[in-house]
């Protein structure tokens, strides 16, 4: 296992620049050119046309009341398709814009119809730009893409671009991440997905959705290659990042022989840097439970406590991993924790002290 960073530093720089291209400059990205027209349709086009467009010009057959509502919305493509705009609800009334009411009113009607067409795809894009986490819009999009991609497999890559755009705006969006899994899997485009999560994690190193995406790639698609180096990079960047430790745990469970004594040495090296880091102690504790020897870790914990009696995770580690012959030691540790070092968990430590050696079963 590498103890120093080699290619990861470089990749990070590479990704920062990639991110700039992918997220900030649609014109430089092929994927985004196809998304561009309908994303701006609602704002630019409507505002350009609105001053000149008369109600008659917008929709010659509609009544005055209809025109008053549809003038800024511009859903010309859908002329003749019957729908009713989203109504203002009698409770929890939301000040919905006309655009929102028409786009979603139409979308709900399309969802109920059998139409799964290019214009329906454009409509979902526009709806999702307005409201990133509308399950109905994403559901319709999924159905439309599945239909259209039968004749146009290139759509899957466009979907990756579209989800990237939404995720870059709203990185905790359940639907966009799920849609991305669907598109990457259907289009067999999994190879760049790890890099994509790298980009997302560059903005937030603990983004739960991005890590789950990565767990999915590792767990269901076996993409474990490079993940030990990657998690080491995340850990060395912020050794308190429990998300990275968790992912490392998953990876070491899948890679043959990865949960070994070297892994324990690595963890203890991280302990050395900042002993009050609960994440690494939990990791060591779990390695112990999986069968590795924790003798060195226990010695390290004792060593840490000699320097810093307030090192709660080290003391907790000794309590959780005591053998039956160490009952008096455990009692002593629990008393120290309960009485001064960790007063917020006083009752818990007192309970542990009262019955050392036996875990408290919930």
């Amino acid at each position, binding site marked *: 296992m590498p103890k120093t960073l080699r290619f990861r530093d470089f990749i990070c720089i590479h990704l920062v620049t990639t991110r700039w291209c992918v997220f900030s400059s649609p014109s430089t990205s092929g994927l985004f050119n196809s998304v561009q027209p309908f994303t701006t349709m609602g704002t630019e086009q409507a505002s350009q046309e609105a001053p000149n467009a008369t109600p008659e010009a917008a929709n010659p057959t509609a009544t005055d009341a209809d025109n008053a509502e549809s003038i800024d919305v511009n859903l010309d493509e859908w002329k003749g398709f019957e729908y009713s705009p989203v109504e203002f*609800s009698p409770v*929890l009334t939301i000040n919905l814009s006309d655009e929102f009411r028409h786009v979603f009113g139409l979308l709900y009607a399309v969802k109920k119809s059998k139409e799964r067409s290019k214009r329906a795809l454009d409509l979902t894009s526009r709806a999702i730009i307005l409201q990133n986490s*509308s399950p109905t819009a994403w559901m319709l999009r999924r159905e439309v893409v599945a239909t259209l991609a039968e004749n146009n497999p290139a759509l899957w890559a466009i979907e990756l671009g579209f989800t990237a755009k939404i995720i870059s705006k709203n990185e905790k969006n359940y639907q966009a991440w799920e849609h991305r899994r669907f598109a990457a899997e259907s289009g067999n485009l999994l190879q760049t997905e790890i890099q994509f999560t790298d980009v997302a994690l560059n903005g937030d190193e603990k983004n739960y959705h991005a890590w789950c995406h990565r767990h999915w790639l590792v767990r269901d698609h076996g993409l474990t290659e490079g993940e030990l180096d990657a998690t080491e990079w995340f850990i060395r960047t912020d050794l308190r990042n429990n998300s990275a430790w968790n992912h490392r745990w998953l990876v070491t469970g899948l890679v043959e022989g990865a949960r070994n004594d070297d892994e324990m040495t690595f963890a203890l090296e991280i302990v050395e840097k900042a002993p009050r880091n609960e994440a690494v102690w939990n990791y060591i504790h779990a390695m112990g439970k999986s069968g590795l020897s924790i003798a060195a870790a226990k010695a390290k914990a004792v060593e840490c406590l000699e320097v810093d009696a307030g090192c709660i995770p080290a003391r907790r580690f000794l309590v959780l991993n005591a053998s039956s012959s160490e009952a008096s030691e455990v009692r002593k540790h629990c008393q120290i924790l309960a009485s001064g070092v960790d007063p917020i968990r006083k009752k818990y430590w007192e309970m542990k002290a009262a019955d050392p050696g036996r875990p408290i079963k919930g």
Partner: protein
Amino acid sequence: MSTNTPSYPPSVPTERELTDFGVQRVQHENIFSDTWHAQHYVEQRVFDIRHARPPEKPLVLFREKHVSWLMRHLQYLPRGSESFDVLQGWSCFWIVHSLNLLGATIPVPTASMVVKHLATFKDPVVGGYGGGPGQSSHLASSFSVIMTLCGLGTEEALMSIDSVSLLRFILQMKQADGSFRVSFGGETDVRAMYCAICIASIVGLLKGVEAEKITRGCASYVKSLQGFDGGLGGEPGAESHGGNSFCGLATLVILDELDAVDTGALLDWAVMRQMAYEGGFQGRTNKLVDSCYSFWVGSLFPLLGLKARAPAGMSKLFDADALQRYVLECAQLENGGFRDKPGTSRDLMHSCYALSGLSIAQHFGEAKHDAKNEVKKVDPVFNIAEDKINYVKEFFSQT
């Protein structure tokens, strides 16, 4: 004087205050990583609030302010709330449940309007409820609608629940491995499972002939979520997380399958989520305090206490007074509503779960409080006021 905002000009903290704070707060140990910076900043803001509050002034629950803030939202949501259009059921639940905990009575005509509005969310084709009229069915939306109706607790509300339609939808969301999707093509995680099992249990579907089809494989799925540190993640391999731990554990409680996970390890994990200085809970190891985990993590203790042969006092193993203090002092706003943490704005979701957590602290953790601060007792499995859930259970056992 305000309890939330520091006094101006600020007084200088005493040496004693600073020393105590220095001992209690998280140490950087010469590794100034992002985690430490974020934590350091929050602690400083909490310290500022505590320093500015006169020590002799008791903590109070601004009950009337919360009620009027919530009632206002039940009528109109503020500008810029378009994203709440898909969360209409959730918004109703957060408001109705918060009002119940505060002991406020929702006027019958208002309740009736809410019931009629929620009825328009029904999806007649696939069953279940969407996030608003015309929207596609979703397990989380269905959950929020059913829980709102239970929270309202009127006969009209409970009569409007169509358990046959719910069953149809729930069974369509069931996956081969026992898990649930939230919707057609939606994500698969333990939230979906909790929503499905919770509403199925409430409306009596788990006693019906189709019960096995709903519950099949649930316990083993939850078992696969237990992380290396003992908590539960959202999907297999995911990081242990307060909200997901609640969903998983509550599911097991409803199914009476608590033996499926290592509850001792889960307790060891849960107890560490309480923040030494702030007093509230974090949702994950080395993350920040957040008032919504007052309920998600706080409720784990009474839930673990439900296990057969659990030691007495399990539900009190966290520091309830510290939790109550965080909620009332740092999350509560004196013009109504609760926020995630100092520096964020109030919202309905955090108000709901901060109040639910406060109830856990007062009624299960036995936090010291007087009648003025007391909120109603919450049911830790269903997160509904206890009097309401008892009535609902009785109602559905008769139908």
